[in-house]
């Protein structure tokens, strides 16, 4: 038996997929979700083999939802969106169905997944997520703390810190972990707002209060929160450049 979950905020769109799935006796729909929050819960609970995922959904979008799952199942995107770089997904996601899609097109996508070698069937789509930034990501970062999901508006971030395979996102309420790289954030965040001042640190300029010299040509940045961030030499130069001093 193959377990699938449908995640789409429009019931009619889900009923369409349900109808198309009727011709697959081996496939069982174990859950239907209205949004990403329900999606995260249902995936943890049912560990499905495959999910059909819409992109634009309430609060958090399909990509952000996937980021919250440690071992994401195989994904077939179903969306009316063609604004994102679809080409980039097609090589990574199992498939990408543009609404409205025909039964033939749908069958082709399922067949594609069925034909994947077993080792690749559940291949995480993290690689694809790394390469894309849907528009929302320029304004917010979605994180998980315990079992709750939080949305952090970008301006509320004080600074970012590298932490093994994770990035620590420091805010007034404490820090959150996100499985991303510093390079990812250096590329996706507004460079006039966030500056990489060190291999392990990126600071929000509106949080900066002063730069103090430390022994022997090294410097430290003081943030409003009281945090002291050491600057690398190239980081210090970059910071001065952006501040125009």
């Amino acid at each position: 038996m193959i377990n699938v979950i449908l995640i789409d905020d429009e019931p009619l769109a889900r009923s369409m997929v349900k109808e198309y799935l009727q011709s697959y006796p081996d496939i069982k729909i174990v859950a239907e979700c209205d949004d990403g929050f329900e999606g995260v819960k249902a995936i943890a609970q049912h560990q499905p083999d495959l999910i059909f995922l819409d992109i634009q959904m309430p609060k958090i979008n399909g990509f952000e939802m996937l980021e919250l799952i440690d071992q994401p199942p195989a994904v077939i995107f179903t969306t009316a969106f063609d604004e994102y770089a679809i080409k980039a997904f097609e090589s990574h996601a199992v498939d990408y169905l543009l609404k409205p899609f025909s039964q033939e097109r749908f069958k082709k996508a399922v067949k594609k997944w069925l034909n994947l070698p077993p080792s690749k069937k559940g291949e995480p789509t993290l690689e694809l997520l790394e390469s894309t930034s849907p528009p929302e990501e320029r304004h917010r970062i979605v994180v998980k703390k315990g079992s709750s999901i939080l949305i952090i508006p970008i301006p509320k971030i004080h600074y970012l810190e590298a932490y093994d395979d994770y990035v620590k996102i420091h805010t007034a309420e404490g820090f959150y972990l996100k499985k991303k790289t510093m390079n990812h954030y250096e590329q996706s965040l507004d460079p006039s707002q966030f500056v990489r001042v060190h291999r392990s640190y990126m600071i929000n300029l509106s949080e900066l209060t002063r730069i103090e010299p430390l022994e022997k040509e090294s410097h430290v940045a003081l943030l409003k929160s009281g945090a002291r961030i050491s600057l690398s030499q190239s980081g210090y130069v970059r910071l001065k450049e952006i501040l125009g001093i």
Partner: protein
Amino acid sequence: MSKLTISYSRIITAYAGWWIVWMVVQGYLINQLGFAWTMAAMDAAVTQLALALAGYSINTSMLFYHPSQKNAVYVIIWSVALAVLCVLLQQWILQYLPGDQKAYHQFLEHTLLIRGLFDWFMITLIAILTWFWVYASEQQETAKRNEDAERLAREAELSSLRQQLQPHFLFNSLNSISALVGVHPEQARIMIQQLSDFLRGTLKKDDRQLVSLEEELQHLQLYLDIEKVRFGHRLATIIHRDEASLTLKLPSLLLQPIVENAIKFGLYDTVGEISISITAETKGEHLVIEIKNPFDSFTAQPRQGTGFGLNSIRRRLYLLYSQNNLLVTRSEGNIFTTQLKIPQHP
């Protein structure tokens, strides 16, 4: 614009030429009356120079204050005052002219009235010319503004098409229809009908720029009906309007983009059921429409139009009514309100 963009230096040359012609005429006349050439020339020069100064003064003040027809009386008073000043100045300077004093002073005395009238006539002439100039410029400006407004309305039509009928609205609606065909074919047919009517309304060549609120609400209702098929389980809309406001006029295709914004904002910024309220009422000389949607004040991004957002609606209203405050937004708690004020006697 081309007619009025005569260069500044040409205006100055023409103005100077005008007074020189009068100077020659006056000099000739005075000489004919038996005064010496030098005398006549000096008299003419003083008179016309003073007049040129007065003319310049009334011209600049009118360009600056843009007097309306109602204020024409001020222009007349100003021109009389200037003429009196002008003639007094001329008399005062001319009495010191060298030459045959007695005869000339007598001449000055006798011609006081005629000089005053001539001065007043000239100043009034310049005032009238200036008034025509100002009036013509204003006409051209209004024409240009109307042209811009028309162009923006056309763009709004296209833009609203591009915006609503691309990914979200059109494709998702078609997807819903596709799903309905399997389970509720009769509802699919209704939705196709609604979508067609909505498209036709958006595409409709609209020569009349203003439509009644009733018409605009009908168009909006088609849109809302389609959105309800997609989001009926989450979306509730409440429309309140007083009977009197139904016949009031507003620019066409104005409400739908704002309501669409509100729905998107409400649906994607919150989970659970949302309610969008639209109220229209008559307040004095205005049709006032308020659109309210819920939002999450913590995570909401500043609303940004993707080319065609609230800003271009504000711009369109400005071009139509030359007022900047017709669209205002406010947020109270978790409710975002967009308020439109449409003047009824522009």
